[in-house]
């Protein structure tokens, strides 16, 4: 590799990619050539920087200048000003990345990054994920070398066990114990598998790790293979993640070329290889037994446990299954020792957790924080608070399996146990913020609609129970709710939790039960007063024209798609409620504020 005086890092994560980062890279290369400085400057495509809200992101080193929402036109200016003349283009810099004196802050001083601790994401946005050498440069594959040459499989397992690492996929089971069970299970042939079937709406941490540092997962799975005695691994990844699939394929090829996968790895006599399996997008395939069935080529349906996969998994053989983020932590634990992880996090939850921040939040994106960070810190300090100064109502963690956390729990330190105690769960790490404009009944309905759609149908409690719950919720949001509906929902929910076969059904009622627990009055308003305080449930809304304010300009009649508004010019108009579809177009159009919703 060459010495380049400047490196231009362009985010190539899915978020920035879809807002045009590939064009930006092309434009940079073209402009550099035009200026004749292409041999001095290196343009690198990296993984996700996390701050997807202001993408596409470009960072120029050595200055560390953080350019946000970069367009191809901006590239021309950045090249001619910054890269040719050495003057950072101040007006294109991300506003939080400069001091009051207009100096560039280092990345960890930017508010968004200040409280973060990037372990699983440490290479995302730093290295070129398509270049194995860059991964190796920051100690990549060093842990594999250490495990293979200096440690016995037993020592690897006890290091992971002592570190206190818990599974990042949702349930939070001890990773070391899982490895130990698989290692102790009887059988010559064993497998290692990676769950990259990230299905929660709004969650994208696993995708970002695979896109930003695919080698971390490959290295960890090889270490796991050594620890449990497996020579073959499978990564089950969603086909909807084309960039992740492409980079994984490339990374596996490079690792094979370097002999870091295949036979006699690092001349130690250890053999291990990896294959990809693409999932077709069924949510239930994130459940471990369904996932393994799908790898085998069967329909993705769960089966009762025990036997657990550690005893009888893939092709009836003992199988170790962990998720992407869990694996991404492994190499550093091996390198730095179990004590290193123990010092991060809370008593029973060690290390960090990656959250995908979404919903009503200023800094939509990916954040990684030590366990024990409070929701308030994540939402306000890192996430930059709620847009338009609206009031926080609830945060939803754990996706369709999790629950809503109300304002009184904003200061709860987040870890596996504290979230479970307040009726939610860590889940894989989706974190959706809701403000006063969100209707909690509607939110519960949305998640349930998702689980009804995704239920595999094998067991009746999940297949029929969630459907009945959804019918009740539809009834309530349509203004046809009756006394007793809330109690029916609670009874059904509790039953489904106990009786369902797999995690999907066992957690599906959580969004409903937790919103009933914390926002029961909103349910009651929908049922008794036929009122939706957030103004979301269409059936409970009415658009009306205030006669005194209406000037009779007729603008509203022209935007109404169903001709529900009538009247004489210069006279107050009137909305026919029997025709109105409550689209809200008239309200937006009215220049006099004469139309109200309520």
């Amino acid at each position, binding site marked *: 590799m060459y*010495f380049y*005086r400047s490196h231009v890092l362009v985010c190539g994560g899915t978020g920035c990619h879809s807002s045009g980062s590939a064009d930006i890279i092309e434009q940079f290369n073209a402009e550099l050539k035009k200026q004749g400085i292409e*041999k*001095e400057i290196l343009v690198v495509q990296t993984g996700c920087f996390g701050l997807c809200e202001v993408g596409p992101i470009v960072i120029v080193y*050595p200055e560390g200048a953080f350019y946000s929402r970069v367009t191809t036109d901006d590239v021309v200016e950045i090249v001619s000003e910054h890269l040719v003349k050495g003057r950072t283009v101040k007006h294109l810099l991300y506003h939080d990345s400069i001091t009051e004196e207009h100096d560039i802050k*280092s990345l960890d001083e930017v508010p968004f990054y200040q409280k973060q601790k990037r372990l699983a994401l440490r290479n995302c946005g730093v*290295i070129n994920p398509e270049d194995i050498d860059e991964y190796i440069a920051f100690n990549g594959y060093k842990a594999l070398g250490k495990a293979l040459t200096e440690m016995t499989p037993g020592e690897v397992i006890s290091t992971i066990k002592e570190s206190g690492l818990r599974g990042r996929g949702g349930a939070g089971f001890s990773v070391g114990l899982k490895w130990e069970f698989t290692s102790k299970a009887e059988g010559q042939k064993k497998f290692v598998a990676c769950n990259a079937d990230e299905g929660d709406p709004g969650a994208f941490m696993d995708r970002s790790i695979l896109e930003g540092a695919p080698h971390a997962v490959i290295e960890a799975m090889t270490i796991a293979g050594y620890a449990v005695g497996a020579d073959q691994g499978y990564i089950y990844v969603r086909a909807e993640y084309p960039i992740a699939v492409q980079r994984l394929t490339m990374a596996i090829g490079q690792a094979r070329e*370097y002999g870091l996968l*295949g036979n006699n790895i690092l001349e130690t006599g250890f053999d291990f290889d990896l294959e990809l399996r693409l999932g077709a997008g069924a949510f239930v395939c994130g459940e471990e037994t369904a996932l393994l069935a799908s790898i085998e080529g069967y329909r993705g349906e769960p089966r009762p446990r025990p036997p657990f996969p550690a005893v009888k998994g893939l092709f009836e053989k003992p199988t170790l299954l962990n998720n992407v983020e869990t694996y991404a932590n492994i190499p550093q634990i091996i390198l730095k020792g179990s004590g290193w992880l123990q010092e991060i996090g809370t008593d029973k939850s060690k290390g960090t957790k990656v959250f995908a921040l979404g919903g009503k939040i200023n800094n939509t994106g990916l954040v990684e924080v030590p366990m024990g960070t409070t929701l308030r810190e994540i939402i306000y300090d890192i996430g930059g608070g709620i847009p338009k100064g609206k009031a926080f109502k609830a945060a939803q963690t754990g996706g369709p399996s999790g629950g809503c956390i109300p304002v009184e729990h904003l200061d709860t330190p987040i870890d596996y146990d504290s979230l479970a105690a307040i009726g939610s769960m860590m889940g894989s790490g989706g974190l959706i913020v809701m403000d006063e404009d969100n209707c909690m009944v509607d939110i519960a309905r949305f998640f349930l609609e998702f689980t009804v759609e995704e239920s595999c149908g094998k067991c009746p409690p999940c297949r029929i129970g969630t459907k009945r719950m959804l019918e009740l919720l539809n009834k309530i949001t349509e203004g046809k709710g009756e006394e007793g509906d809330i109690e029916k929902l609670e009874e059904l929910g509790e039953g489904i939790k106990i009786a369902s076969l797999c995690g999907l059904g066992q957690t599906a009622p959580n969004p409903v039960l937790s919103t009933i627990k914390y926002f029961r009055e909103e349910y009651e308003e929908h049922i008794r007063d036929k009122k939706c305080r957030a103004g979301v449930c269409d059936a409970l809304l009415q658009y009306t024209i205030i006669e005194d304010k209406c000037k009779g300009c007729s603008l509203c009649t022209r935007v109404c798609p169903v001709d529900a508004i009538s009247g004489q010019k210069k006279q107050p108009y009137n909305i026919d409620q029997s025709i109105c579809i409550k689209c809200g177009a008239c309200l937006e159009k009215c220049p006099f504020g004469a139309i109200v919703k309520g």
Partner: protein
Amino acid sequence: MKTLKELEEIRQRTLEAINLRKDRNGIRVVVGMATCGIAAGARNVLTGLIDQIRDRRIQHITVAQTGCIGVCRYEPMVEVYYPGEEKVTYVNMTPEKVERVVTEHLVNGSPVTEYTIGAAEKIH
């Protein structure tokens, strides 16, 4: 197939090249690239500098440009900042002079006094 030793070599080699994304504490070399500098030939000085650093595989170093340093008659100018030390300012630089600065100052740590602004001022 790679051995552990080869892996370590790749690590060292690549780290040299990409360390500037993390390292903020190395030697900083700044070339004056305002109109005056460019007109006096600063571009060749800059590329010469980069070539030298590449060839000698010097680590923990960043090369940046700056605007007009203020004494345009001495352009092209190059400033060298060692962490925690006074900066050294070289004047009337050429690609040939850069070679000496790289070997003596950036590699061996002793400034080439005769090229510095102090020496130039004495002559005048």
